[in-house]
């Protein structure tokens, strides 16, 4: 232990002698780990948010397809589904999109057919009349609207429709409700000029959760022009979007890893004359190759471990304290309204271990291999270089 501490002392003295070079290296290394860690934390948090909150999404959503595209579904289809054995509840859903040319933003209009009730994540109340609405915090934010104000939307007949804002979804729910405008279902039907015999799609609840995929097959059998989407498929969609091989991870992780490889390659090929001379002197005064490799191991570990810990702390603060300002432009794309992140931290330790392995191990190898090459050569030649 004491011997290792002394070797570490020597290694740290060596690092301090080349402090500017090593400081630059530490900053670049920390930045790389922070970039990779930020993507890891953000995707994991979004994945957790989706997988935990969408567990209450409809067990089955039945859409109608016409000419290969999503079409409005006849309410009569709901009756066909309702009489299938094992079906608990069938609810036609009315929802759609509304593009506002002034702010150039898309909003999601959702119809609500049940009796208004109190929601923990809603300030104010749900719409209780046809001329009332509740809005997401993104909608309220972009127009500066408050509860009690009136929202003017242009309906399918190009007529202005006024809705009093009775509720505003809290910012903590903005990942789910940011662009929502909630109206009573009948009011939304009139707004979209949607036939009373049609709905956007049908939400289905099944008695036995194990039978959902069987029910989906039955629905497809009885109504061949439909497309049933199960809750598991919804959850799987988000798992796919934010997994290791997703576009988001690839976009940043590959760039950061390439930058890191260049850094490591430069380190591996560019052992300086001073370092060679130092190794030569140590060999000449009787140090073993194993001792020199131990010094280099501690040097590499000191830099990589410090960079790894600093990088992860930076990534954590970037994502969970600052709201990931470096990554949101990538997610935001051309969206005008984008949720403010209040993500609950979620960490996958397996992914952290992989990140540690991908960053620490190559750097250690790149430190040890060139040092070993010099250490096994003639000390005189090493001192002369």
């Amino acid at each position, binding site marked *: 232990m004491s011997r290792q501490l002394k070797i570490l*002392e020597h290694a740290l003295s060596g690092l301090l002698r080349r402090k500017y070079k090593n400081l630059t290296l530490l900053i670049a290394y920390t930045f790389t780990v922070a970039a990779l860690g930020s993507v890891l934390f953000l995707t994991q948090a979004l994945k957790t948010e989706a997988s935990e909150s969408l567990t209450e999404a409809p067990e089955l959503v039945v859409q109608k397809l016409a000419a290969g*595209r999503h079409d409005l579904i006849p309410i009569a289809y709901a009756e066909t589904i309702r009489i299938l054995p094992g079906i608990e509840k069938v609810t036609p859903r009315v929802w759609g999109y509304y593009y506002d040319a002034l702010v150039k933003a898309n909003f999601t209009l*959702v119809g609500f057919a049940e009796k208004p009730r109190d929601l923990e994540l809603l300030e104010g109340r749900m719409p209780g009349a046809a001329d009332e609405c509740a809005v997401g915090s993104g909608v309220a934010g972009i127009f500066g609207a408050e509860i009690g104000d009136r929202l003017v939307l242009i309906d399918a007949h190009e007529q202005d429709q006024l809705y009093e804002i009775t509720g505003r979804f809290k910012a903590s729910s903005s990942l789910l409700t940011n662009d929502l405008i909630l109206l009573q279902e009948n009011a939304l039907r009139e707004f979209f000029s949607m036939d009373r015999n049609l709905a956007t799609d049908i939400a289905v609840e099944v008695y036995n959760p194990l039978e959902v995929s069987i029910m989906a097959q039955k629905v497809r059998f009885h109504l061949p022009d439909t497309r049933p989407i199960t809750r598991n498929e919804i959850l799987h969609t988000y798992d796919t979007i934010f997994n290791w091989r997703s576009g988001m991870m690839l976009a940043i992780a590959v760039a950061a890893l390439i930058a890191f490889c260049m850094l490591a390659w430069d380190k591996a090929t560019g052992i300086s004359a001073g370092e060679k001379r130092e190794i030569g002197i140590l060999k000449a005064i009787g140090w073993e190759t194993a001792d020199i490799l131990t010094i280099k191991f501690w040097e590499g570990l000191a830099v990589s471990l410090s960079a790894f810990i600093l990088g992860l702390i930076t990534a954590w603060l970037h994502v969970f304290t600052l709201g990931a300002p470096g990554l949101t432009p990538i997610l935001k794309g051309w969206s005008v309204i984008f949720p403010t992140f209040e993500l609950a931290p979620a960490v996958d330790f397996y992914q952290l271990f992989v990140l540690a392995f991908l960053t620490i191990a190559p750097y250690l190898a790149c430190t040890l291999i060139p040092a070993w090459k010099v250490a096994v050569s003639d000390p005189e030649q090493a001192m002369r270089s």
Partner: protein
Amino acid sequence: MIRSLFFMILTGTGALLLSALFFHGHSLDRKMNDKRELVRILSLTDLALFSEARYTRHPSQADLFSAFQDFPGVFEHFPSGSLVMPTPIGMTRRIKIIKERQP
């Protein structure tokens, strides 16, 4: 030995700080029950992350290749389209070729 002790204390403090952040994150109230209630009552199916196009706003509800259905052969032009992969949910139809004559 001062440097090595200083380094070990510094690294240990960093590791402790990181562990504290992880622990703090896990102990935070995520309001998950309230969110689940919201999802159940409003029958929500997707996160309001990418609102730039309908097939990115509701990736789980979108048709496969919705982007290309707006015009045959059109290029994907929304940035988030490159992050959201199309999911072939409920798409089971297959093309069959029946040969006129067996060789």
